[in-house]
């Protein structure tokens, strides 16, 4: 009997080991697949293959995205790779299977062991990566955060898609326009822990309090869809039920805005409840074409990854140190300057996001 128990326990342990190994295998196998399909990035497969083997040396720059299988992330990593390739260096593209900090920590540990020059992270958690990233910096590796940042102590620079306050001012104006200046609006966000989401919401509330222009507008609720389809749909339906006078939904998350677009389409509320936010053109094409969402925004993930790639190389070769006022050339994007970030660290701001509407969605929906 005891023997059996031991066997069962061993099997369970073995199963967990398999489960833990599987994501890495998936990551490795899926990237070549996508690259053979797109054709444009056929060299990606060779890069990925070399990522698996243990090599030491310089000229290697790694990016760790939130999770695999995210077309937005693929584009961001592609942009990063393009930048690094332009400079004749080697890019390593990694992402855990699930969007967790644990998965990213494991990858960062592997990268430290590989002795890369720089690690660029798109963090799943602002604080949880600190021990791993501190260890990387102590090992002489340059650490950069992009898109979804980490706290100021665990990075040398943050490549920001847009300054949070600047960004939401921008966003707020769209909500203002969509509500025609007065009425109730709601935010459908991702998780309550996502770094950038909370920064934007704080910035928004600050602006609403300080500016007379928005006194007739009321933020009725910040709902969290956890970036899950089913939960985002339920949250949207609850918003519509609880606030029948709702004029506008702002969803600063790609999953949330698509789920809200689907709900508004199914309920025939296009024109009654406006929808805007951050969305993927391919996912939102349907809802922009049918008028549910008049326009929405997204920065170009290719550009963002590209800028991160140049930032990583500039830090590594000593062009910049990460101090405020440093300037460097980011390939085709032109010159960028390091500025102070609101959390006490320093950052580089990509610029205003791109606006997608019925006039340009057709050409973008097949891009990403």
């Amino acid at each position: 009997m005891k023997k059996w128990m031991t066997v069962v326990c061993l099997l369970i342990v073995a199963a967990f080991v398999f489960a833990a190994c599987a994501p890495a295998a998936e990551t490795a196998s899926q990237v070549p697949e996508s690259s053979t399909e797109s054709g444009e990035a056929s060299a990606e497969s060779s890069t990925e293959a070399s990522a698996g083997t243990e090599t030491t040396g310089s000229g290697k720059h790694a990016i760790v995205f939130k999770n695999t299988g995210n077309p937005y992330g693929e584009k961001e990593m592609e942009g990063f790779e393009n930048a690094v390739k332009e400079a004749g260096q080697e890019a390593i593209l990694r992402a855990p299977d699930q969007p967790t900090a644990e998965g990213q920590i494991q990858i960062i540990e592997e990268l430290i062991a590989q002795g890369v020059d720089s690690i660029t992270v798109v963090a799943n958690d602002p604080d949880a990566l600190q021990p791993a990233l501190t260890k990387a910096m102590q090992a002489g590796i340059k650490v950069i955060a992009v898109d979804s940042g980490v706290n100021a102590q665990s990075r040398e620079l943050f490549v920001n898609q847009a300054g949070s306050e600047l960004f939401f001012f921008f966003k707020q104006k769209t909500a203002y326009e969509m509500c025609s200046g007065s009425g109730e609006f709601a935010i459908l966000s991702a998780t309550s822990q996502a770094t950038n989401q909370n920064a934007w919401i704080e910035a928004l509330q600050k602006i609403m309090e300080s500016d007379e222009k928005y006194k007739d507008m009321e933020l009725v609720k910040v709902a969290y869809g956890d970036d899950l389809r089913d939960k985002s749909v339920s949250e949207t339906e609850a918003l519509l039920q609880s606030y029948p006078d709702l004029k506008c939904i702002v969803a600063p998350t790609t999953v949330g805005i698509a789920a809200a677009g689907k709900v508004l389409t199914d309920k025939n509320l296009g024109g009654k409840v406006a929808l805007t936010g951050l969305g993927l053109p391919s996912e939102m094409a349907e809802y922009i074409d049918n008028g549910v969402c008049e326009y929405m925004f997204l920065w170009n993930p290719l550009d963002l990854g590209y800028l991160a790639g140049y930032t990583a190389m500039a830090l590594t070769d000593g062009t910049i140190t990460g101090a405020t006022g440093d300037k460097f050339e980011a390939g085709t994007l032109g010159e960028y300057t390091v500025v102070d970030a609101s959390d006490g660290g320093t950052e580089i701001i990509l610029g205003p996001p791109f606006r997608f509407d019925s006039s340009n969605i057709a050409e973008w929906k097949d891009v990403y």
Partner: protein
Amino acid sequence: MKSSVNILEKNKTKKIFRELGLLIFLIVLCVVFQAINPTFFTWENLADMLRNTSILAILAVGMMMVMITGGIDLSVGAIVALAGMVSALTVQYVPQLPAVVAILIGMGVGIGCGAVNGVLVAKGRIIPIIATLGMMNVFRGLTYLISGSKWVSAHQMSDGFKSIATSGIGPLNTLIIIAVVVVLIFYYFLNYNRTGRYIYAVGSNPESAVITGIKKDRILIMSYTLLGLLTGLAGVLWVAKFASAQGDTATGYEMNVIAACVLGGVSVSGGTGKVGGLLLGVLLLGVLQNALPLINVSTFWEDFIQGIIILVAILLNISVKRRADKNALKRREI
């Protein structure tokens, strides 16, 4: 003879009472939600809730069948993704394909996946939790592979395909109708069909089932395959409902399905489980998902409240069950 009839009757009242406990809890919960937000009991909200719960109901019925055999299937979330992705890709490349064919394709994929699970468990003699854990990763990986880790978005799907989830007969949405039909079919199958009863026999006492001539392996393979079929169906419905197919569709959803089964009184050790109780478990989860956003508390409290409610429901169920068991023992003494 007389006493045995008496026992049967007593048993019946016990069973009804047990389901009644969960039902009363659900009703109390609904009344509380209604008191907090009066829009809860509007037709539109109830229709939303049933529509969102129908996929869970389809999956839970299949999962209950497998759990009755004493097994479990952790790969349902991955099969949902795989079947949904295959049908979505088919629709993307053949837009004029009728929606029914897309559903059949998804069900075919599901049958294949389920059959593999079934053979591994029955013929390979691998513990179900491990066999399906392994296959979960295989199916999830396949989904990423066939899609090239790209998404299929709303504009790439035909209107016919998307209308699976938006059409309906009268006020009833197609999803709800499909779920009701599935539940009715399996209610009949599990209660009045000989093969259906064999499933209970295999789960409650495998050795005697084999001695009485029941082909245990076949029953096991059939259970997993039927769950696969339902999961494939659910996968197509899922993708049509959200008009989006991704590699990470329904990740972790198997936990919701298993939770619905356990809440509905299905035993993890096999042999017990009723469609009536299961429906209450499914509805409880559906009501929670629908109503928690309505009561306007912070997200942190939402999670906390959800956990507490599920715990209370399970505690209630256990206490009622213990009382029923005690009564059964008393009868045996007489």
